[in-house]
């Protein structure tokens, strides 16, 4: 049981839904990332998703493309991302960190070395966007050897056969992609979420987080009625893009996530109990 399992178990106990903000490491500036992570926790984040910048983010929309480009221009490489996690861990032992990224930077480092260094830095799980269950086995074993979970995406297009296979491999939580599209797309249809989420609930045996296209407190609250966690990425990254200093970035993070947290908590009571009881 790693930090991520403990966190979801604790949340389930008190009926709180996980707020999972995503930020791109090194955006808007590598020196500000650790402060932004702490600010997110202060504003009510339960799990942190930290994007490892990549030059060719095929599954991401323009906001995260731009964030990755800025982070790379500012010299964010993988060593620097690990240093950020280490620095964060000096002041926060408890908040789980999920690294989110693409295959090639991991391949270049070597999967085993990547997993070992990620664990040493204080990472708890890894989501590789372009590594579906079919290709995941070597990676999953490297991560498991270090006690790290591999997080998998489930999409509206995922067939029942695939769903069973993914749920077999998944650890930590299952990330449901709420729409057919890239990150930051505008057209989240809340009504279409209920049916696939209840189907997923039957298979998963793990907490379910929902992401892609969630940008406002009201949407986050609506999703919190149906899922164990809510991922917000592009909407936050878009605001951070305007920050001119670490202080501004911290302030923007709190100002954005605070109302999201409040809206999610306000619906906590009338939501049906989670199928997951640890």
């Amino acid at each position, binding site marked *: 049981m790693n930090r991520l399992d403990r966190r979801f178990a604790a949340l389930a106990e008190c009926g709180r839904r996980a707020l999972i903000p995503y930020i791109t490491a090194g955006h808007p500036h590598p020196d500000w990332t650790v402060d932004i992570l702490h600010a997110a926790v202060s504003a009510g984040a339960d799990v942190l998703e930290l994007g490892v910048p990549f030059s060719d983010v*095929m599954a991401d929309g323009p906001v995260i493309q731009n964030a990755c480009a800025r982070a790379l221009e500012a010299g964010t490489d993988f060593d620097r991302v690990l240093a950020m996690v280490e620095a964060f861990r000096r002041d926060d032992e408890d908040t789980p960190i999920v690294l989110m990224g693409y295959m090639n930077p991991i391949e270049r480092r070597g999967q085993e070395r990547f997993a070992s260094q990620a664990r040493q830095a204080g990472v708890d799980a890894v989501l590789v966007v372009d590594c579906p269950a079919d290709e995941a086995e070597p990676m999953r074993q490297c991560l498991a050897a270090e006690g790290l979970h591999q997080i998998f995406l489930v999409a509206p297009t995922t067939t029942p056969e695939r769903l069973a296979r993914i749920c077999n491999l998944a650890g930590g939580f299952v990330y449901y992609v709420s729409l057919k599209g890239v990150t930051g797309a505008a057209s989240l249809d809340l009504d279409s979420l209920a049916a696939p989420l209840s189907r997923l609930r039957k298979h998963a045996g793990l907490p379910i987080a929902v992401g892609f296209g969630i940008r406002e407190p009201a949407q986050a609250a609506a999703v919190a009625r149906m899922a164990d966690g809510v991922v917000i990425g592009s909407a936050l990254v878009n605001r951070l893009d305007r920050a001119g200093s670490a202080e501004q970035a911290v302030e923007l993070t709190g100002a954005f996530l605070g109302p999201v947290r409040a809206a999610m908590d306000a619906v906590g009571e009338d939501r049906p109990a989670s199928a997951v009881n640890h």
Partner: protein
Amino acid sequence: MAEPAIRYPGPLQVPDASGHFGKFGGRFVSETLMAALEELELAWRTYLADPDFVAELDADLAHYVGRPSPLYFARRLTEAAGGARIVLKREDLNHTGAHKINNTVGQALLARAMGKRRVIAETGAGQHGVASATVAARLDMECVVYMGAEDVRRQATNVYRMKLLGAEVVSVEAGSRTLKDALNEAMRDWVSNVDSTFYILGTAAGPHPYPAMVRDFNAVVGREAKVQMMDEYGCLPDALVACVGGGSNALGLFHPFVDDTDVAMYGVEAAGRGLSGLAHAASLCAGRVGVLHGSRTYLLDDDAGQIRHTHSVSAGLDYPGVGPEHAWLKDSGRARYVGITDEQALTAFHQLTRLEGIMPALESAHAIAYGMQLAARMSPEQIVLVNLSGRGDKDIQTVAETEGLSL
């Protein structure tokens, strides 16, 4: 008019059932696309085994594309090289001017069979974009083509051609603003419109089944060449030469010859300003194994695993990855891969133009340049078969610029 005599062999020994060519290939995409790739694979396997579908494809290749394309003995080019006879496979004579149409005709028929009314494509030089817009016009489909902004500038006439054909051309400003960025953007479109849209990928790269499917649609080139060589020369060629960007024209020629081990195979990559620097696009000659655009293959990246900007005078070769089957052919030793610089390609462009009255695409000029080098090292009774994959009309602006002219 003769119909091509050879039937589709169907999926061959590679890739395996999961789309891997040895350690290469596979399906490295976001989960959202996995079901669509499974659906596409099923349709590809089903329809290529369907005699009606294959008959329609063969008829289109004969009457619409203009197949078979001839073999042409380039006598004066042979004299200039001074060695083996150089024979050209004239894919430049196809409708729309390149081998690309073999694949788009096939994929568009597949799209129609699958009930998709909207097609998207990525393009570098614009040849695949034009070929996609062409088949979309004919089948009355909506067509959107993604093209890097740098390529939009380099290939203005092809952009206009696509618009005339009714396609929407989207200029992609991200990254290096070339083919790889166009491919990223096409993937994003597909993920967002996966129910209604068929992605006509233009090269033998990307996630399974694209590398194998694009190869199979282009393999008509090699099948014809084999028959034509036996008919016209009574033997198989001693060597095959083709340029490699993503690698579809090369695989189309090579694939039917893979088991003919006496036939040497040479893939020619863009060495740009030289392989010793970074301004090239030679992923097999100078790259290493990684994951890009859905498959594990050779690619050009930095030590942090970020994909590098590439350079070639030819937009169609200006790509940091390569199809996984080429990676497999390289590692198995069956094919060899070499580099030709911008300057060498431009020289070959002028030579073929002036000696034979055939203006090659700058991509194909790379193959011509290496074909001449190779022929010079061989004896006059031997034959080098070069795939002249496209014609050069689209490139005259670029060639003029290298001479300080503006048209």
